[in-house]
């Protein structure tokens, strides 16, 4: 099937819609990252088996859909029943038969499987009434949870590739770039650079070859938006890339996917092959003289390859060492050719902007920060998951309304955004809007969209130490300030966390941080001290507690704490089994005791104790 005109595409869409309309019921099994980690595949197989065994009128195997991330990962695995709009949470394989019998066959809702509002304790029947969803606006994630992963039919059914058809057959490259520029779309990878301006610069470079690269090297720990898009809606990324390629005059494109995402590679590859089959990739697209094809490159486990020049080196099969930014990659990028590099989410936004126009897009979000941003809301928050909100939404709204507040109702302490380049923001900034400029002003960063919520049991010194140790092992090692500077900064953070530091060590750390920021070659080093700087800025007392009182108020830093079992212990032996160091002894149903000489303060016992019987002192 080769589509050669926009009309053919429309006809095809109609055909797929008609086919879909015939489905009386749809059983949607979420295959997002969270659900996959909770056994979604088993649920899907179970549905397949039960459905093929039972004969239900109008419900065939076609009713069964495997979609991308629904977002509410906390309650994974998720199953939705359409068109009723029912969302079942924490589904287990043994419940599948029940769901088919009751809900699919007889439209009967199973209350125990419904989402329970943490405040009202009420079960919510309709998907859209769950607060987690009602506060969101989905653009980049528009198709997740609605269409089959890597299925071009389903994608075309919901209007896929229409924007691309419009761009190629009705618009000039200049008009496209103009539209994207006017939309105010800024790089969703975290840099926040104007996408339209990037394209315009690239187009202007006179060269016989231009490249388009999609950065799918989502390296920030705690972020998985791009993974969800690449796995759940790969065609949106392709469509965005094709439009970009047409706009800048590129004939080849690359998608660089980090190696930790094998499923993303599989689904993108399927999508590419489907698009080629339909004539949407390859020679003379839509009968024009525009030709474009895409190749996937898998990363090999290097955070620094998220940096553009390092990524391009890696695509070329080399070591991912960044080069100095004085020569911009948009002018001299992959193989020294002008190259547009955008992030997955940025590309996923492009078709919608072309389809609905810049004006519509600027109507969403905040001034100079138009549109939405996807976040992975994780950490000590109740509703962990994948969300998308208009720019400018406050942190409070995200954490409390969508996230449902903190686990066990513990006090909020900080929220970390921007990954290892970002920072930790305290409760005093909960009402500040989430957009590129506000976050930077607050000493953090938008980053690619990880949002990690921390409660009072999270130690900020430990968090800074964590990020520094991450960066020390991920630094490419080329330049001195990053390789040696971050290493020394890490060593100093360890000193603080172990209670060996003195007050002037903090100043030393701050001074060193300033020099690392000025001196480093690439963004990794230049933003490396941010997690330390932001925590010391907002949580200085906590650092001082470690230094002066030799105490870790959050009860995390091992050298400064010890554990004791209190009288709530009912002798369940859970902690004894969890302790890897045999430091806990006691008989069943008798209070246990911790041998302080053997205890390593790892805290495993605390995590398994259901009686709150272990105190951190």
């Amino acid at each position, binding site marked *: 099937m080769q589509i050669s005109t926009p009309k053919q595409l429309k006809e095809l869409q109609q055909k797929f819609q008609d086919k879909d309309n015939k489905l009386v019921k749809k059983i949607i099994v979420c295959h997002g990252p*969270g659900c996959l980690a909770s056994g979604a595949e088993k649920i899907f197989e179970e549905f397949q088996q039960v459905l093929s065994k039972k004969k239900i009128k109008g419900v065939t195997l076609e009713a069964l859909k495997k979609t991308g991330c629904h977002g509410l990962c906390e309650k994974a695995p998720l199953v939705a029943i359409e068109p009723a709009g029912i969302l079942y949470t924490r589904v287990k394989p043994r419940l599948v038969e029940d769901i088919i019998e009751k809900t699919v066959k007889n439209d009967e809702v199973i209350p125990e499987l419904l989402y329970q509002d943490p405040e009202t304790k009420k079960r919510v029947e309709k998907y859209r009434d769950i607060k987690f969803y009602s506060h969101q606006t989905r653009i980049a994630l528009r198709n997740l949870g609605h269409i089959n992963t890597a299925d071009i039919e389903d994608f075309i059914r919901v209007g896929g590739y229409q924007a691309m058809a419009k761009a190629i057959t009705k618009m000039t490259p200049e008009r496209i770039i103009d539209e994207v520029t006017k939309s105010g779309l800024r790089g969703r990878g975290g840099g926040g650079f104007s996408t339209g301006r990037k394209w315009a610069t690239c187009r202007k470079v006179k060269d016989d070859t231009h490249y388009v690269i999609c950065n799918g090297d989502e390296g920030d720990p705690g972020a998985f938006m791009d993974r969800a898009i690449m796995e759940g809606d790969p065609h949106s990324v392709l469509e965005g890339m094709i439009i970009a390629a047409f706009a800048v005059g590129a004939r080849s494109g690359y998608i660089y996917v980090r190696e930790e995402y094998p499923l993303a590679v599989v689904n993108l590859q399927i999508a590419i092959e489907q698009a080629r089959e339909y004539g949407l990739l390859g020679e003379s697209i839509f009968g024009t003289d525009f030709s474009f094809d895409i190749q996937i490159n898998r990363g090999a486990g290097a955070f620094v390859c998220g940096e553009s020049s390092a990524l391009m080196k890696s695509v*070329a099969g080399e070591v991912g060492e960044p080069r100095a930014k004085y020569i911009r990659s948009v002018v001299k990028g992959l193989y020294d050719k002008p190259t547009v590099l955008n992030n997955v989410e940025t590309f996923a936004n492009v078709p919608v902007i072309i389809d609905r126009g810049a004006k519509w897009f600027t109507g969403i979000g905040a001034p100079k920060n138009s549109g939405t941003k996807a976040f992975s809301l994780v950490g000590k928050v109740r509703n962990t998951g994948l969300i998308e909100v208009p720019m400018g939404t406050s942190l409070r709204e995200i954490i409390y309304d969508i996230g449902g507040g903190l686990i066990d109702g513990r006090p909020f302490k900080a929220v970390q955004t921007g990954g290892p380049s970002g920072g930790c923001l305290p409760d005093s900034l909960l009402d500040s809007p989430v957009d590129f400029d506000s976050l930077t002003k607050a000493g953090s960063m938008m980053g690619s969209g990880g949002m990690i919520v921390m409660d009072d049991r999270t130690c900020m010194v430990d968090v800074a130490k964590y990020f520094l140790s991450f960066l020390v092992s991920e630094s490419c090692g080329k330049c001195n300030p990053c390789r040696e500077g971050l290493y020394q900064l890490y060593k100093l953070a360890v000193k603080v966390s172990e209670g060996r530091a003195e007050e002037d060590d903090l100043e030393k750390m701050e001074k060193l941080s300033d020099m690392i920021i000025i001196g480093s070659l690439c963004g990794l080093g230049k933003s490396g001290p941010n997690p330390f700087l932001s925590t010391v800025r907002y949580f200085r007392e906590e650092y001082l507690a470690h230094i002066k009182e030799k105490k870790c108020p959050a009860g995390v830093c091992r050298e400064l704490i010890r554990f004791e079992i209190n009288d709530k212990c009912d002798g369940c032996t859970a902690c004894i089994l969890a302790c890897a160091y045999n430091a806990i002894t006691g008989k069943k149903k008798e209070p246990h005791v911790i041998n302080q000489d053997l205890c390593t303060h790892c805290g*495993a016992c605390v995590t398994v104790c259901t009686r709150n019987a272990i105190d951190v002192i």
Partner: protein
Amino acid sequence: MKLDITKVPAIIDRHPRKASSLIMILQDIQKEYNYLPSEALHKTAEALDVPMSKVYSVATFYNAFSLKPRGEKVIRVCVGTACHIRGSRQIQEQFEHHLKIKPGETTPDMKYSLEVVGCVGACAMAPVVMINDKYYGTVKANRIKQLVGKG
């Protein structure tokens, strides 16, 4: 046991003979052998006409590559931010304790390798452990023994 590297030329042939194929070829070799045998590195260097030093540089720069044989089951403990604040360090230590190896090492019986990974992108289910290609979410310290058992 002598290593059979006769499959290497076929792996190389699946890719264009140019320097930019290097990482992809190494990935495929690793997939086949579970690590990068040195003879395979030499063959790759020769076939792509890339200096051996560059091949070695790439093979040691990226985390995904191992120059030592790895165990049947590769246990990867996610130590991403979300996992960290939900206790991945304990999980890692539990594995270290039960398997008596450190990250990057393999048990002498070649059954298990332990690795830590920056983030596997399943942050909502923190802490997460991957055993070969399978994900395990919300892992608790007392589940480790069982995980090591089944994997």
